[in-house]
């Protein structure tokens, strides 16, 4: 990786938008997949025309969904042009998992990672922006020191305990955390791409020890917070009864599954004929227990999801944001997936060559028989 500096004249957002425009103009990429500000929020866009990247704002602390699924759809059937995809860590990691699950391909993809210290619940973001409590440029400059909360509102719980700041596997990486973001942004470029990116006027970035220190400090703090929260929830979930209590208010709407970047099934098994029962079945069950809660199988739904994507869960927390009942699904999943991941020393998104442990599991893998 080579370090460059992108000069900023007070507005890191604008400078960055210009940088993206340049990427397209210089044909470093043929198209760009990037978050742009729209109506006080921000949405993912696919840009072909360089001038249409003017609202690009990947730093805006909002993400309506984990973009990995969108990138996956983009790439899955023969992507012919080179597309730069601007992604946060959780999105890159989810993308890597989807590649392993053969739901995405990385051919013709240039991963452009951005630092992320978390995103607000979309509704919060929108109201903060509309009340002018949050101005993206100002928030960025301030948050670059590690302070994310504003106006008494902080980023999503999952983000607060996320121990990833920089994005993995990026060929180009945009760093703002620990930088004087009002003056300059760090652009890191992998060696093969360096000569092309140098076409855009960038200053030499040199050593970024100070930024590195801050990033490390933040990662450590968040890891500690995460551990604490997981412990707390592990306690809360140490029996099936407690889990069932926690999930009482689930209405099996499927939003969590819809928001999940890893849940890739075309149709969930829970809406398939396997779970379509005859009326007499329901009545029989009700007869057996006196009453049953409807919809049925809510706990089984979550456990099955945990089983299916536990090993690949990147803890983006989108499920939690999507839950209309306010169930802390994200942290529940962290608790469950951590067990599997720790068991196999597997870190989702770490390495594209690292096989999914449950598909290669051998009977004697974990320990000798005795």
């Amino acid at each position, binding site marked *: 990786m080579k370090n460059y500096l992108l000069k900023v004249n007070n507005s890191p957002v604008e400078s960055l938008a210009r940088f993206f425009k340049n990427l397209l103009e210089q044909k470093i990429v043929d198209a760009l997949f990037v978050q742009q500000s729209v109506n006080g929020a921000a949405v993912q866009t696919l840009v072909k025309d360089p001038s249409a990247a003017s609202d690009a704002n990947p730093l805006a602390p909002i993400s309506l969904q984990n973009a990995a699924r969108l990138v996956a759809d983009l790439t899955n059937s023969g992507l012919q042009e080179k597309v730069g995809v601007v992604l946060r860590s959780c999105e890159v990691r989810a993308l890597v998992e989807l590649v392993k699950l053969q739901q995405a391909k990385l051919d013709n993809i240039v991963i452009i990672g951005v630092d992320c210290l978390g995103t607000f619940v979309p509704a919060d973001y929108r109201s903060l922006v509309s009340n002018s409590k949050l101005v993206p440029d100002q928030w960025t400059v301030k948050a670059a020191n590690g302070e994310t909360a504003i106006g008494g509102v902080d980023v999503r719980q999952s983000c607060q305990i996320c121990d990833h700041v920089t994005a993995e596997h990026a060929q180009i990486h945009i760093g703002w955390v620990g930088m004087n973001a009002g003056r300059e942004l760090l652009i890191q470029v992998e060696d093969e791409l360096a000569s092309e990116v140098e076409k855009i006027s960038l200053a030499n970035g040199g050593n970024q020890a100070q930024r590195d220190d801050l990033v490390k400090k933040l990662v450590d703090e968040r890891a500690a917070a995460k551990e604490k929260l997981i412990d707390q929830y592990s306690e809360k979930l140490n029996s099936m009864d407690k889990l069932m209590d926690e999930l009482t208010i689930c209405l099996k709407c499927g939003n969590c599954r819809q928001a999940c970047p890893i849940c890739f099934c075309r149709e969930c098994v829970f809406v398939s004929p396997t779970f379509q029962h005859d009326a007499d079945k329901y009545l029989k069950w009700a007869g057996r*227990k006196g009453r049953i809660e409807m919809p049925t199988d809510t706990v*089984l739904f979550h456990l*099955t999801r945990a089983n299916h994507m536990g090993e690949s869960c990147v803890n983006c927390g989108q499920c939690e944001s999507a839950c209309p009942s306010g169930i802390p699904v994200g942290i529940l999943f962290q608790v469950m997936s951590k067990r599997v991941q720790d068991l196999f020393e597997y870190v989702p998104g770490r390495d594209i060559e690292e096989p999914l442990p449950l598909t290669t599991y051998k009977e004697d893998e974990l320990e000798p028989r005795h």
Partner: protein
Amino acid sequence: MSVPEEKLDANFEPKIVGLMCNWCSYTGADLAGTSRVQYPPNVRIVRVMCTGSVDPMYLVRPLLEGADAVLVGG
């Protein structure tokens, strides 16, 4: 899902679902029969062709629905 206290008395008759591999443990259960090994009548055996086909759902579902244990033999 812990076993409720009231179930832990001497009269407690657990319901056990056994998922047994056709080639080994189901055969083993057959052998128990052939050998007239007597055991408590609490298990209901479901034959599968290989325990590799046991979906975790097969374990969770009965436990959620009232079984006290699931025995997987393979």
